[in-house]
């Protein structure tokens, strides 16, 4: 118990003193996971909506693949992103392995199926006749899709939370493709793993507490937005 209290105390001290290294790690974590979530939103909402609103041969297989993708293990993603970005890999020429960009790519791959799956379910839950109603109101196809997305906004906000929550907390892919390089690719999760392996439990706990506070703060903001969009 003493270790835990010491860790919490250390965390508060690091936060209050605005420790430059910790602030740097926190900022990078936010930047990387935020960008990855943003990318996953564009791809996930786009494809999720398209699959929900269209019918085509093999649709059920596509839906099953999306749902499977929601449980994609980060280490598997890390492994394949590493292979693809490896010096001799298909995208080796880009030379982005062990860079924040590599972590963003890996995290975007992890978050996209989550956002896609939730979007798909959210759009399918809307009444089928709502599409016809929107078209009958004189909407173009683009206006129709936009209005449907707005109708599913509460569920889509949940997709943002789930996507961000999934990537800010993952460690496997970040450590594999980022390499946990100090001051460059070290994020909160990889730093926590490293400090734990070194036996620095107080620092590891401090980083975990910061991670939890961060995740809570982001979700609090998103929840407030989600609850505010519904009129009284």
């Amino acid at each position: 118990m003493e270790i835990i209290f010491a860790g919490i105390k250390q965390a508060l001290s690091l936060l209050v003193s605005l420790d430059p290294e910790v602030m740097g790690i926190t900022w990078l974590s936010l930047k990387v996971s935020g960008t990855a979530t943003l990318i996953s939103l564009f791809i996930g909402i786009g494809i999720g909506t398209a699959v929900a609103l269209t019918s085509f041969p093999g649709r059920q297989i596509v839906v099953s693949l999306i749902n499977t993708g929601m449980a994609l293990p980060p280490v598997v993603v890390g492994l394949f992103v590493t292979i693809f970005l490896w010096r001799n890999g298909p995208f080796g020429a880009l030379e982005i392995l062990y860079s924040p960009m590599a972590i963003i790519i890996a995290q975007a791959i992890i978050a996209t199926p989550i956002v896609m799956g939730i979007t798909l379910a959210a759009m399918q839950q809307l009444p089928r006749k709502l599409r016809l109603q929107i078209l009958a109101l004189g909407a173009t196809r683009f206006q129709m899709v936009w209005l449907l997305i707005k109708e599913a906004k509460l569920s889509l906000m949940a997709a943002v939370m789930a996507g961000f929550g999934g990537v800010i907390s993952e460690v496997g892919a970040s450590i594999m493709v980022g390499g946990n390089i100090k001051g460059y690719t070290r994020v909160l999760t990889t730093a926590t793993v490293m400090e734990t392996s070194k036996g620095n439990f107080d620092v590891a706990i401090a980083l975990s507490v910061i991670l939890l506070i961060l995740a809570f703060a982001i979700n609090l903001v998103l929840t407030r937005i989600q609850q505010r969009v519904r009129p009284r």
Partner: protein
Amino acid sequence: MRADEPITPILRGENIQVRRGGKRILDVSSLKIFPGEVLSVIGPNGAGKTTLLQSLSQLIRLGKGDICFQGKKVGAEMAPLDYRRCLAMVFQEALLFDTTVYANVASGLKIRGVKSAEIVSLVNTRLEQFGIEHLRDRSARTLSGGEAQRTSLARAFAIEPQLLFLDEPFAAFDPPTREALLEDLNGVLRTTGTTAIMATHDQVEALRLSDRIAVMNEGRIAQIGPPAEVMNHPVDEFVASFVGMGTIFEGKVINCERDTTTITVTRDTRPAAADTLPTSTTSAPFPPAAGTASERNDLIVEIAGPARREERILCCIRPEHVTLSPGVRTDRSSARNAFPAVIARISPAGAFYKVHLNGGFPLVAYVTVQSIEDLNLRAGATVTASFKATAVHMIRRG
């Protein structure tokens, strides 16, 4: 326009066909909607009413056929989007957006890019017309079913459609709510002179609102015409049955003189609705016809109107045209046809009671609660059922 000039239809559908799962679910050879009229499309579930509305409004793709709006072929001379922006649709479910009542009513106008100042005025007018101005800032999710449907109607009228499609808009409501909505819709339709097509399975709704009624069956329009014509002169057995011709039987013409046709009807010797008759009456023979039986014991029915001898015809009588009197009467009243009949079953039918009888052929009559008591009507009792020759509508068997 000269008075004798034919009115140009606002909407014309030609050879409209829709297939689903390899099956033809809609097949309408021609349908014209005239400016300012209200056309009701009635028919049983699965008759194709909704598919017809969605096809005419171009919300679903046609397998075949053309739709012309104000003389322009949609898809060729007029873009589908431009066409859709001339119409509005109200569904059975209100299908409101998750926002305020005001924003919902304004949504069609916003989609069209109408200026805010104009939107305010148009929306306020419709909110007032449908009595929902006090709900303008309420969330659509908190509305009752009736309020939500009023909002949906206000949204449809806010865009001042040239053509309004109503797909069973009141089917989900209790009678008082339906009555109130119907009254308001009728008022706004007549005030604005909006052309409307309404799908419904409620004939009362159709009669209240419509200038014409179309009866649909298995994807086809079985009959279209003014309400009185469709209700009283159905073209076939299906329409007759659907519009409430309670009594339908077949007969053979034996004579036709001075516009009065006499037919014979083969006496049905099977007990009607035996399960509902008391045991004592099911085995008993039917009462003898009151002086109307032929030598072969067939029944004789007189009908106003001409027919060819030996022709087989279907006779249809509305329940309200059949009158009942107690016991077996042999005297002839103004009704040309009087038959002793056994009451098989009495069931409530709104403000009336529906009496199912067997007078040698099945008969249905409407009576009031007072009549049930006064005439002591009950299952198994024998009464005299009578109807005028003019009450019988003939359908030729072809």
